[in-house]
């Protein structure tokens, strides 16, 4: 048996043709059809994938695109939601019942926050950020969009309950007067925006006016003081000394400096200046009244550029950039209104991002190429006030849909920027900068009577003959902060001249309003 099996094996030599397995002639058509079906199945799967992509994955983005005619159609079908301030005052509502209702804005001071909704120019501000919720295109009930077709009223517009305090907002506007500048006030524990002033601003009622709106907006665009720009979130300013708080955060959180850090050569450098690679950094003589090396508290109180230049250099470029990026520098802030990213340095220089040590030393006290938005600086103050924990800034507390459902947007922690202990040390130094014997001369006007107040003023040099920007960031009460303010007055001179007293008035007003006295 074994033998016979072996005998049946044919040996095929290389020169012999392989045995023909396939029958002669072309393959049967039916066999090819299976493979063709497979190809078709793949093609149709691609179409199905396309359907899923547009109708499920991208559906809500497409539906809320401001160019989508559905947005117009929904605006016709459903009354737009109302926008309220924190005590229930109406910031935006509909007037005129026939056809597409017009929006009316009773508080002009809220324009940079509320924005407008115009048939010609579309939307801006909160009207833009929450357009889908205000028209009811996005519903608060989960699954509502899916089941919209089964409802009588397809759209479910929501009212916005904002954290804005119109009185505080108006005070900010009044204090700025006809000067250009911005004010941001935040509740540090929650990130709620209490006031967001940008001056000059526009009249939203005239923007939405169907008759005169076009001309009005054209005129606004002509003006060279950019009234349509929201300076509080998109204006980029040289910060000057208020940026020293960021340098302090970088130094403390990296361990490069502590509260008792001193720089031995400092007393001599008062006279000669601190020479960094041939660049001389000076302090204003009147601030320098101590003949010993300053520690962190003293340096912050007198706002010593030399001490902070040293601190920036010992912290190093990477630590400064890291701390800044934890605070939100370099990105658009996660906020309801569009923001500009703040920067510590302009380029990608060879010295860890900076051009050289000179740039780093200057950046450490807020000059060089540091550019910040007022909102960003308010967040810096808020971080210190809230024990090192940065909360996400936001304007809207609650959405109330017309069907009665309510969505509350609770406070959201964003980053733990530095330890609570370090934050407390910086807070103490900032309190000295307002209330200390030397600080009082610089920022004493920010003090809320009878309430411990912390802060840091700044005088941002712009080079040439241009008057410096007047800056202040601070909070009160220093031991249990309720309000953080950041104030900038363009060309307002030294911090003490304009921003400091303004901040004092704002904090005083708000704390009095809060305690109800």
């Amino acid at each position: 048996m074994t033998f016979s099996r072996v005998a049946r094996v044919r040996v095929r030599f290389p020169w012999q043709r392989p045995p023909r397995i396939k029958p002669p002639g072309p393959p049967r058509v039916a066999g090819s059809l299976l493979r063709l079906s497979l190809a078709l199945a793949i093609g149709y799967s691609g179409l199905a994938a396309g359907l899923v992509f547009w109708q499920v994955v991208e559906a809500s983005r497409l539906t809320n695109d401001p160019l989508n005619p559905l947005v117009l159609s929904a605006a016709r079908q459903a009354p737009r939601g109302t926008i309220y301030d924190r005590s229930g005052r109406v910031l935006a509502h509909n007037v005129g019942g026939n056809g597409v209702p017009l929006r009316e804005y009773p508080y002009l001071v809220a324009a940079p926050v509320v924005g407008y909704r115009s048939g010609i120019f579309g939307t801006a501000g909160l009207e833009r950020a929450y357009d889908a919720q205000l028209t009811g295109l996005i519903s608060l009930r989960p699954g509502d969009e899916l089941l919209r077709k089964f409802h009588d009223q397809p759209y479910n517009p929501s009212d916005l309950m904002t954290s804005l305090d119109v009185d505080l907002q108006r005070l900010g506007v009044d204090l700025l007067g006809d000067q250009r500048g911005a004010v941001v006030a935040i509740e540090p524990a929650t990130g709620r925006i209490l006031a967001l002033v940008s001056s000059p601003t526009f009249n939203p009622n005239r923007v939405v006016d169907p008759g005169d709106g076009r001309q009005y907006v054209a005129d606004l665009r002509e003006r060279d003081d950019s009234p349509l720009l929201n300076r509080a979130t998109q204006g980029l300013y040289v910060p000057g000394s208020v940026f020293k708080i960021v340098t302090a955060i970088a130094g403390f959180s990296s361990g490069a400096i502590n509260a008792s850090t001193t720089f031995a050569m400092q007393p001599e450098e008062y006279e000669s200046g601190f020479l960094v690679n041939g660049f001389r950094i000076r302090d204003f003589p009147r601030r320098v009244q101590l003949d010993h090396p300053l520690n962190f508290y003293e340096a912050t109180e007198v706002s010593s550029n030399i001490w902070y230049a040293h601190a920036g250099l010992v912290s190093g470029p990477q630590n400064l950039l890291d701390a800044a990026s934890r605070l939100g520098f370099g990105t658009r802030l996660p906020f309801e209104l569009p923001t500009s990213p703040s920067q510590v340095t302009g380029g990608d220089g060879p010295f860890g991002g900076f051009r050289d040590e000179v740039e780093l030393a200057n950046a450490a006290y807020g000059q060089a190429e540091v550019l910040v938005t007022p909102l960003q600086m308010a967040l810096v103050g808020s971080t210190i006030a809230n024990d090192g924990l940065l909360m996400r800034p936001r304007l809207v507390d609650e959405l109330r849909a017309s069907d009665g459902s309510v969505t509350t947007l609770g406070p959201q922690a964003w980053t733990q920027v530095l330890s609570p202990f370090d934050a407390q040390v910086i807070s103490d130094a900032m309190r000295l900068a307002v209330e200390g014997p030397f600080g009082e001369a610089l920022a004493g006007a920010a003090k809320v009577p009878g309430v411990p107040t912390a802060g840091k003023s700044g005088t941002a040099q712009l080079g040439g003959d241009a008057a410096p920007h007047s800056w202040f960031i601070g909070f009160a009460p220093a031991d249990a902060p309720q309000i953080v303010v950041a104030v900038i007055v363009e060309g307002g001179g030294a911090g003490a001249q304009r921003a400091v007293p303004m901040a004092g008035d704002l904090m005083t007003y708000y704390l009095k309003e809060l305690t109800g006295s």
Partner: protein
Amino acid sequence: MRSATPTSANTRPWTEAARALYRIGIRPRFRWQELGLLVVVAIALVTGWASLESFRNGRLEIGEAGLLATYVAIVFAIHLAFVVTGRRMDQVLLPTAALLAGISLLLMQRLPQDLVTQEIAGRELSLGPLQLVWIAMGFAILAVVAIFVRSDGWLRRYKYTWAAAGIGLLLLVFLLGEVTGGARLTLRLGPLAGQPSELLKVILVVFLAGYLAENRAILAASSTRLGPLNLPPIPYLLPMLAMWGIALAIVIVQRDLGAALLYFLVFLALLYVATRRASYVVLGLLLFVAGGAVLYGMFPHVQERIDIWIDPFADPQGAGYQIIRAMYAFGRGGILGTGLGAGLPQVGDIPSIPAIHTDFVFAALAEEMGMLGALALLGLYALIAQRGFRIAATAADDFRALLATGLTLVIVIQAAIICGGNLRVVPLTGITLPLISYGGSSMLVNGAVIGLLLALSDRGVEPPPPGTRQNVIRRLGRRARGFGGRVEEAIS
């Protein structure tokens, strides 16, 4: 239980009627599966109609359902004709086509009626009624072809004549065609206007089926090598290169990218089915890519199509407008859709998507019936593919198999090209969605395609008893064939 006697008594009138029909050469045959499916289709369409009318009028009602009733009557009449003539044809194709055309009627009834108006027989008809006229004509052709086409000889034998007729048609369009929407598509003869590219696709399939069935043994064997590719003898390659050239010519002269793409894909698929040689497909795709690259460089209208495909938002108010609006429509539809009538066909007087009733009817459907409805529509085309391939697989010979495959492919691939264009899966080209889009030429030709598929699926009917009338017809037929044969010889 009753005894067999009363039952046979009951069926006596039936058998009498059947005998009478037998005497004139007809053997009725019930088509229960088709009837059942048609009832389901009718219920679905009535539900859709009621949904549309209820939405429009704000309360549950069926409204003016004259159009729908007419349509359902036509479909059942065709079913009855199939039953009476005793055809043993596929029983799924007619209900599938009936559902597709019914959805088309619903959509056309739903879209703004003044998108198209035309005067027919002294009456001014708008979109919905007009589409019903086209559907009725298309289904009439479907029925006539399915019932009366008993032999494929006239298709099989005169393939070169068909090809010549097709090229002639193409030339006629080149010379006399009217330009609509940037493409030279419409041929007008007196009061009649049509788009010959629709007819051309059928002619092409007939020619290819004939050619490939005859030569596929040679094509499948290789004798020429070109680099890594095994190719058939050069003379047999020529028709394929000609095909490629025709596709290019259509793109260049007619500016009809969709038709060119359709012809070329159908051609490649048929070539593969006939030879099962992937190298041909690879070569074909290489030629396609090369041709596409050259066309992209040379012709702005090709370039524009590709650029819009890649980034429609580059020019949202101009070139990208249509496709962006379609994307919005898909997004609005979501998973379940807005419901029939509740979509957004127009804002003010501007239709939401230009050409929504022809090129973008899929987007309109996906908006109102949602992703599930659109997937179901794709499923219907897949069902046509399954039935068509089944007919091909069980066909008696190569010609019939290739013909059935090709006819199936022109519907299925055309649907894929335009749906893919709507969905931005492939660049957008302007062709119709078979059996759905508004249009006379498209409905007539696709009706004929389904009819031919049905005829091909007929599993033989006993030849009717001879009669004098038929002999006359046969004699005439023989003479015609003699003439046709001489023409064919002359061409080939």
